């Protein structure tokens, strides 16, 4: 240290001060970005739906969850791990199934109708009229509800991924990522979205099953 003039400030404790601050920010930091399942609620309605808005039963994939977290899908009791495969089968279905309703025939497949629709990139295609109807009980646990939602969203995502892989050799999630920068990817994404439109309808919950 020079004796003449003003002596230099001792910077030895600089590291200590910085460490103190560093530890403070280390402790207070929360790195978690919020993740979740994004859904859209239906707009509020004042009047009940008219009768001609009713959907044919064969187009509906009925999912019921009761207060004991049990799952009833299309009248059958199944496990939540089997739900995705069944939902996929229903959403994809097959346009060659008979379009004429013949409820007397036991072998008549309870699968949705198809309608010729124009899709931007693909041209005319048979698009299923599928709707997934989800109804839960007031006593259903939130954990179960999310599992069911997750499986249904997963079924759509997997089908979209398969279609994207088949048509464009890429996954749907990649298309979604690229859609911000590339118009071509955006069109492809929209086409796939229109081929497998996500239609999950949630009925108002019933109080059955005796909970609360």
């Amino acid at each position, binding site marked *: 240290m020079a004796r003449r003039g003003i002596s230099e400030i001792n910077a030895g404790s600089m*590291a200590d001060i910085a460490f103190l601050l560093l530890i403070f920010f280390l402790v207070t930091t*929360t790195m978690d*970005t*919020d993740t979740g399942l994004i859904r859209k609620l239906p707009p509020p309605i004042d009047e009940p739906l008219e009768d001609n808005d009713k959907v044919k039963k064969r187009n509906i994939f009925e999912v019921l969850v009761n207060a004991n977290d049990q799952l009833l899908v299309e009248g059958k009791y199944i496990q939540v791990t089997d739900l995705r495969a069944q939902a996929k089968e229903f959403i994809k279905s097959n346009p060659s199934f008979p379009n004429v309703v013949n409820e007397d025939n036991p072998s008549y497949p309870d699968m949705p109708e198809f309608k010729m629709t124009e899709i931007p990139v693909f041209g005319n295609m048979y698009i299923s009229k599928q709707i997934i109807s989800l109804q839960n009980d007031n006593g259903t646990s939130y954990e179960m509800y999310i599992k069911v*939602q*997750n499986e249904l969203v997963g079924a759509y995502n997997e089908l979209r991924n398969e279609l994207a892989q088949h048509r464009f050799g890429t996954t749907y999630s990649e298309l979604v990522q690229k859609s911000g920068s590339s118009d071509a990817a955006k069109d492809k994404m929209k086409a796939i979205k229109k081929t497998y439109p996500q239609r999950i309808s949630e009925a108002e919950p019933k109080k059955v099953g005796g909970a609360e």
Partner: protein
Amino acid sequence: MSKFRKRGKKEQPAVNTASLPDIVFMLLFFFMVTTVMRETSLKVINVTPKATEVSKLERKSLVAYIYIGKPIKALQGVYGTAPRIQLNDAFEELEVIPMFVDMEKKDRDPKERNRITWSLKVDQDTKMGIVSEVKQALRKENALKINYSTKKTDKISN
């Protein structure tokens, strides 16, 4: 740093620590930039369920949070163990949700008011009854874009 007295003859010189403050500062700035301070203190037990098909919420400024769950242990003596709704920093009743929606909308730019995501942070042990009521209340207020806050996982079990 030759201030340290050498005890033995064979000892190696001390490591130069002059760049230590620089390293620490670098780390410090990293954490300062990435840090997000908690805006609310949780008054409910909040363990969100796990899911595989999650997506990230993009703009944090356009997210409003609604917490639902049992009151935390310290508050259970006063509030009991029935699930409660927490908005901002306080327990609220269902009737307050319209006001909450209005307030959150007023806080945002008029152009972006319809793009607010309503993030439901619900404890996994909650029953759907209260969640459905909140959803119906949000629906009446035209707050339609909702997000069920979940953690990412690779596989779900039965």
